[in-house]
């Protein structure tokens, strides 16, 4: 699956390189003889202080078609999105992005807060052999951010969560907790003793 895409990317990059070389070609050919063409092109190219290679191509993805179904949409009382990361600054910017997206879609936010960070500490021996008194300590910090959305429909939740998840930065993990609302079943809506007052008790 990766092979055809990689081949396509290579073809694109080769195609782009050829087009670049060909647009420089006529100028270089006029200046020198063909057998040392490549070196001449290289010296004519302005060696920029920093250049980047055009290899990253956007993988095309077909958008999912809109479906209309008869069954009623799921309703969520609360959808809580917990993001975890090592860097607090990354989580700050992600929170700004997520709250902006929610405001644009018209989703009500219950609260946006920061749970206290967790630190996992390890104490190891500093030396590979003996020297038990000399240790070295490492710690891994996990920062959290929680965004709670209230009273949201299933479709809106799906769209919002997909958008949020596609733009998750690297090194950040997300946990989503959904609290759904269901209609009270009919058989427990009314108390039983009010429905059938006419029943004669057989024990009487």
């Amino acid at each position, binding site marked *: 699956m*990766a092979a055809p895409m990689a081949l396509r990317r290579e073809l694109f990059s080769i195609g782009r*390189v050829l087009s670049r070389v060909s647009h420089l070609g006529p100028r270089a050919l006029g200046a020198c003889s063909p057998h040392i063409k490549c070196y001449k092109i290289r010296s004519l190219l302005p060696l920029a202080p920093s250049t980047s290679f055009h290899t990253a191509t956007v993988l095309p993805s077909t958008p999912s078609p809109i479906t209309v179904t008869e069954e009623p949409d799921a309703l969520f009382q609360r959808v809580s999105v917990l993001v*975890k990361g*090592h860097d607090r600054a990354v989580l700050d910017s992600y929170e700004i992005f997520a709250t902006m997206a929610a405001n644009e879609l018209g989703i009500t936010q219950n609260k946006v807060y920061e749970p206290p960070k967790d630190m996992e500490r390890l104490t190891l021996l500093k030396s590979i052999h003996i020297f038990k008194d000399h240790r070295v300590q490492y710690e891994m910090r996990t920062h959290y951010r929680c965004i709670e959305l209230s009273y949201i429909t299933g479709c809106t939740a799906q769209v919002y969560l997909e958008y949020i998840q596609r733009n*998750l930065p*690297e090194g950040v993990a997300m946990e989503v907790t959904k609290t759904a609302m269901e209609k009270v079943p009919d058989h427990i809506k009314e108390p039983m003793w009010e429905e059938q007052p006419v029943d004669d008790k057989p024990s009487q």
Partner: protein
Amino acid sequence: MAAASLSTRSAMLLSALARSGSLCSPSGSRALHVTAVCCKNHAARVRVGKGDKPVTYDQALPPHYIGHRKGWLSQHTSNLKGEGGAAERTIEDVFIRRFMFGTFHGCLANEIVIKRRGNLLTVCALMLQRLPPMKFYFLIGYTETLLSHLYKCPVKLEIQTLQHKTVYKYL
């Protein structure tokens, strides 16, 4: 071994002094502080020399500045609380670094940054302009194809080239 004997001798000295100290001067006490061979921290640090060794920003800062003045070279979620797969990611990272070091021999300007987003593995590297661009393109395509076949996930390389290594200071 010598350190162990030194520590036992120092312990005997200390205890002797303490006993003598408690007998003669109850108000103050003098003690002899001796440690075994104190191992200095050498991890990820470049030792200060004569001033002729060029060093990049990443190499110049010691590891206790990670998160404060330094960034992370490898970004994935397996070291967070409640997430797994840390060992596999570390082995993949080590292999990718050695592979890049060998494939682009002598062209790397700085350490490689590895980012993981979902299934996608992005390798970001700074290179020196030592090879002609055609060879660079070939090596990039070769690396991407080989690594994506090895790890069964899409691998993308983001390369930027420089003329010389950026030097932060001379140590």
